[in-house]
């Protein structure tokens, strides 16, 4: 962002190790004062965000400790970094954890193997997650909202778009499945496959990203049992998926081996309270454990 600051303010920012372009981005204002720098440093108010004052102690000559190489950070990654820093600094986030029984979905997917082969679409577990999340977003409208810039208005969305975080060599990208509540599983599965492969090869268009109701960050294919995703603003919640594990579940009078998927829901506590988040994730797990409920 282009900013204007007097020479004294620029010198003060340098002295304090503050990058004025981040202050400008955080305040949303072009003209900056000494007070903006102070507010940024104290961490109060909207100025507290990306980058903070890390330049003061990260400006280290690493070469003095051993050999190093330097590689430029690509533009996309720099944009993502600024957004992540701002999100982490500005949004009071809580992460709620749960697990969902995947037996019914696994069985259902198996029963559709032949049909999937005939259609040429791989029906992944992720497609069911998108479908279940879309359903929950309709049932819990506050999760499908954004705060206005001044924080005085909650904007509730009458559409359900689900973002899928995709790890690519250039940067983290989040293509979006539009109107996921009105799409069938086959279509969702096909769209997820198409968008992620095009994100990988960087052939995705700008308008195919942005505008999501909520995003899913799926690390199930890699491993791990839980993580704390960072809300992708202006969305107010994000769902993290870890690797499905067979765990013993006490069923009436016996232990059963049940494939359970770990669910991690990070949310913006300014918009969503803890009880609401718990209800959301309980409902989500219930939809997964018995996908027939998505029909009723």
């Amino acid at each position, binding site marked *: 962002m282009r900013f*204007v600051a*007097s*020479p004294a303010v620029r010198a003060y920012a340098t*002295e304090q190790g503050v990058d004025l372009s981040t202050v400008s981005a955080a305040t949303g204002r072009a*003209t900056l004062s000494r007070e903006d720098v102070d507010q940024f440093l104290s961490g109060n108010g909207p100025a507290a965000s990306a980058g903070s004052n890390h330049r003061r102690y990260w400006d280290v000559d690493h070469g003095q400790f051993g050999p190093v190489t330097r590689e430029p950070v690509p533009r996309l990654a720099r944009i993502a970094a600024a957004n992540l820093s701002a999100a982490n600094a500005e949004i009071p986030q809580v992460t709620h954890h749960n697990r969902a029984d995947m037996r019914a979905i696994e069985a259902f997917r198996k029963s559709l193997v032949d049909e999937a082969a005939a259609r040429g679409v791989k029906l992944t577990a992720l497609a069911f997650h998108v479908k279940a999340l879309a359903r929950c977003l309709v049932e819990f409208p506050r999760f499908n909202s954004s705060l206005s810039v001044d924080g005085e208005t909650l904007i509730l969305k009458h559409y359900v778009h689900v973002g899928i975080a995709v790890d690519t060599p250039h940067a983290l990208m989040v293509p979006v499945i539009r109107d996921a509540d009105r799409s069938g599983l086959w279509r969702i599965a096909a769209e997820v496959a198409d968008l992620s492969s095009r994100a990988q090869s960087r052939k995705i268009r700008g308008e195919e990203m942005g505008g999501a109701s909520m995003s899913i960050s799926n690390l199930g294919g890699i491993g791990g049992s839980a993580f704390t995703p960072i809300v992708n603003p202006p969305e107010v919640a994000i769902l993290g998926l870890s690797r499905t594990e067979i765990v013993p579940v006490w069923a009436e009078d016996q232990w059963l081996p049940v494939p359970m998927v770990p669910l991690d829901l990070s949310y913006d506590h300014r918009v969503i309270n803890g009880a609401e988040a718990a209800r959301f994730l309980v409902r989500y797990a219930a939809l997964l454990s018995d996908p027939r409920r998505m029909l009723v």
Partner: protein
Amino acid sequence: MTDHHADFIVLGAGPGGYAAAFRAADLGRKVVLVDPRTSLGGVCLNEGCIPSKALLHAASLIREAREIADWGIAFGDPKIDLGALRAKKNGIVGQLTGGLRQLARKRKVQIVQGTARFTAANGLNIDGRDWTFDQAVIAVGSSPIRLTGWPEDDRIWDSAAALELRQIPARLAIVGGGVIGLEMATIYSALGSKVTIIELSGQIAPGADAEAVGVLHAALERQGVEIRTGTGVDGLTATSVGLMLSCSGEAAAKIDVDVVIQSVGRRANGAQLDADKAGIEVNARGEIAVDARCRTAQRHIFAIGDVTGAPMLAHRATHQGKVAAEVASGHAAAMETTLIPSVAYTSPELAWVGINAAQAKESGSAYKTTSFPWSASGRNLASGGADGLTKLVYCPNDHRVLGATIIGAGAGELLAEMVLAMEMGATLQDVALSIHAHPTLSETTAFAAERALGTLTDL
């Protein structure tokens, strides 16, 4: 075996070097300042900015005395005592360089006369003596470029020789119509020389706003200066009676003159330092690369001023010098600006800062220009009514000032307001709504701003 050690050593005592030395001393450092000259101040004080301004002051009085004849006041032709004029100029230089020495003494800065070369990353040799140092600032400046293939002849001057005021040549050619060449033309034409300026590019003062340069061009021609732009010099032949320049291009001709001043630019002095022994690279133009904190590739060695490349201006060097001293002493400082004003102390003066119309157009971003002609300024008319122009480049979206060019008497002084305005991010309205005293030439910036805003009532 090392004889000497310096905590903080500055190579070069020009405006950048002494600023670095004095600032570091004020921050509590033990400072050594090295320069080959017997006096401090570098090119600027000894053979540049200051002596040229002294002679330009004399030139301006000669010219004004002549021009006031129109008003019914005649002084007659001036009698010029070249020896006395030279002594006056040298006296001014001596007063300033002597003052610097006192300032250095007050700060306990140790002055070493000599030429320094690096021997290692922390080692120097100064005229045969070995020194070690903790931190160094390279401020060795630049030298006039000498055209290749020309004979050795004491009638071929560089700017330093021209300011020695050896004689007033009857016919003088100035090769290079940049700021230095134009100032020499202004001095010597007032003293009585028939001056010809030969400039390779399409306009004198290359890089300055073309419209403003047009005003200067016309004024110089009225003063009897012949200007040949788009013209190169292929060769120079020296004979016992004079020098002959063979010119090609738009004004191809053979020109016979008594003296030639070479002012085709300056070259950074980095190559004479053995900087490679300190692990510092010097490029083919003799320049040393630095970051915004004036650091070279070696964290403990800084470089400032002309040796870091264009724009080669004293006021840039001074600011860099302070930044280098502060960064070296553990303070967070940096060159935070790219706004470096340029002034040609010609008659009339030409001054500019930021971008001009041609540069704005080239950048491709949105811009507009506005100007106020001095023919409509009461103060200017009351002072003789010479041509002048105040011109601003601004962003049409937010009305912020992006550049300013002023041609006219005292333009170099008037420009300061626009430098501050631009540094503060002022808009045209800020300039227009700040009340400027009437009648002054400073009003012309406010008038130019008002003209763009549609609130001007003086035109």
